[in-house]
């Protein structure tokens, strides 16, 4: 098999198509929500809606386990809290501050930024992968998660897992030739990009809606969201 040609395709045409699907898909998802209609809220507020929204986002950002309002939630859902937190933190640090990834951003955006040393990025990837496995096992055994997980939930885990694992193996030059691993990594990334608008991985966009709605509703009632 000509892996160089596959690599060329995976990081060239296919990547561009995937990126286009991702952007167009997310725009479609956004438009669908906006066009469904929004009822004006005619209830006289007791507190500040805007203040509530601000507080809601602030609370969403401050998630350290010693914070009073986080403590209870964290201790009742330790696996999701810790593994979920580490997974998000690890993944985004690597995507944004790994040197190889920054170069991809640079080619897309036209400017770059300082990155983290490889050993740190490497450890973060390993921890993020471990966290992901933790989340997978938790979904397998937790009765609530078993009940609410359909094929899409399992696919989400798999499709996010593949780019992470191929990327990790690639930087360590394990098992296969470099261009094979690079191709697999890029193919996995392309699939992920296409999958995001079709799935709940798109929650990063709707997060801003739900957090704002929650904050406004609580702010309206003069209650801390």
């Amino acid at each position: 098999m000509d892996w160089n040609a596959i690599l060329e395709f995976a990081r060239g045409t296919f990547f561009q198509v995937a990126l286009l699907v991702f952007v167009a898909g997310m725009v479609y998802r956004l438009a669908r929500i906006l066009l469904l209609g929004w009822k004006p809220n005619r209830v006289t507020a007791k507190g500040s809606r805007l203040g509530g929204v601000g507080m809601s986002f602030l609370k969403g950002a401050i998630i350290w386990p010693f914070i009073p309002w986080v403590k209870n939630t964290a201790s009742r859902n330790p696996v999701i809290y810790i593994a979920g937190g580490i997974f998000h933190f690890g993944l985004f640090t690597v995507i944004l501050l790994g040197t190889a990834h920054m170069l991809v951003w640079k080619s897309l955006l036209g400017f770059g930024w300082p990155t983290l040393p490889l050993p740190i990025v490497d450890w973060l990837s390993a921890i993020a992968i471990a966290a992901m496995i933790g989340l997978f096992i938790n979904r397998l055994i937790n009765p609530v998660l078993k009940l609410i997980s359909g094929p899409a939930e399992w696919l989400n885990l798999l499709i996010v897992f593949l780019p992470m694992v191929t990327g990790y193996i690639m930087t360590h030059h394990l098992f296969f030739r470099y261009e094979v691993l690079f191709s697999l990594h890029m193919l996995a990334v392309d699939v992920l990009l296409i999958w995001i608008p079709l799935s709940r991985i798109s929650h990063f966009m709707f997060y801003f809606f739900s957090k704002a709605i929650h904050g406004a509703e609580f702010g309206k009632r003069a209650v801390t969201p």
Partner: protein
Amino acid sequence: MKTQEAINTFVKETGGWVAAQLEACTRCGMCAEACHFYQATGNPEYAPVWKLELLRRAYEQRFTISGKARLALGIDKPITDADLTHWSTLLYEACTLCNKCSMVCPMGIDIGPLLHNVRSALSEAEVVPLELMAAVNKQVTEGSPLGVTDSVWDDRMEWVADEWEVELPIDVKGADMLVVFSSIEIMKFPENISAIAKILNKAGEKWTLSRQGREVVNFGFYEGSEKRTKLFMQRVFDAAKALGVKRVLVTECGHAYDALRWTAANIMDVPAGLEVIHIAGLIGDYVRSGRIKLKPGAYDNDGTITFHDACKIQRRGGHIKEPREVLNILAPHAFKEMTPNKEEAICCGGGGGVIAIKAADPQRYAVFQLKIDQMKKVGAKTVAMTCSNCRLQFTDSVKHFNVDVKIAGLSQMVADALED
């Protein structure tokens, strides 16, 4: 069964704000651990996210490409009669719409109102538990879910006025404030009526009761029927209009406050300039402004007093500070907080119509054990609250478990400690 009507209702209610929140859900399941029904029983079906399942399916199968595809491929199931019957037990018998779940959702989804939407669809499909529906129908025909007809109301008010020697103005035109009690207070806690009357009289309030708008409880709101929710609120608003009052005072009833104060304006015309307030907030205002004076430390010698936050008056009503200010005057040393409290408080387990449904008794009592644990931890001898529905649940459950705790309405405590 009217399955299609339920689906239509789901679709009708799915505005952008509902859809955006459904889309934001990552199916992490953290809301389960916030639900007192799940905590108490461990039944995974009580997870709030699972209670929303039908709303999600209806939305996705109607509006989204992937939802339509999954339906066509048989991965997602259409909503059936059996589903509606099953979800009726989850929504009415194991949910008080207390909205605690929204406090832990990492996406900040305001789950409570979405659960209310599910109830609306179930009510359109006519799968509301019989006992709850009987109470709703009673309120439609007799004006009260507990059978307080015109003549019962008249007798009851006359008796309260005599028994506690308190003045109860009825149908006074030109009064400033219309006071509307709940049937629970009228039938089970009549001392609340005299207590609130005493407070209002002491503060020199120009208030009145109304024979037309005599029921604040809104069983249509429990049911989730917009039509009947409006009907019951209309009676109160009509009375307010007829008497020309500026304010409507909701007494110790939680759901009614949520309906009249936070929902009415969005689903019907509220008379212009009419303000809806709650007794918990009003007492706070009176105390702050000095219109009533309380005996400091009046309850400091009767053992530890704690305060139970009602979901609709504190977390969803905003009257979190006032009761605490009052208790810190009445019992500065004896007042101790349970944990968690305030907007994070654990719900009593009887609200949202749950207490009216016999089949819900096992989980209702199971939930109350969480409250017992909380009360025991602070060593409470008395627990104060501002909602009669909570109070009904506490009174009944304390008896059921044989717990030695005194249940007190805050208005009652205030009325008994008024400085002359």
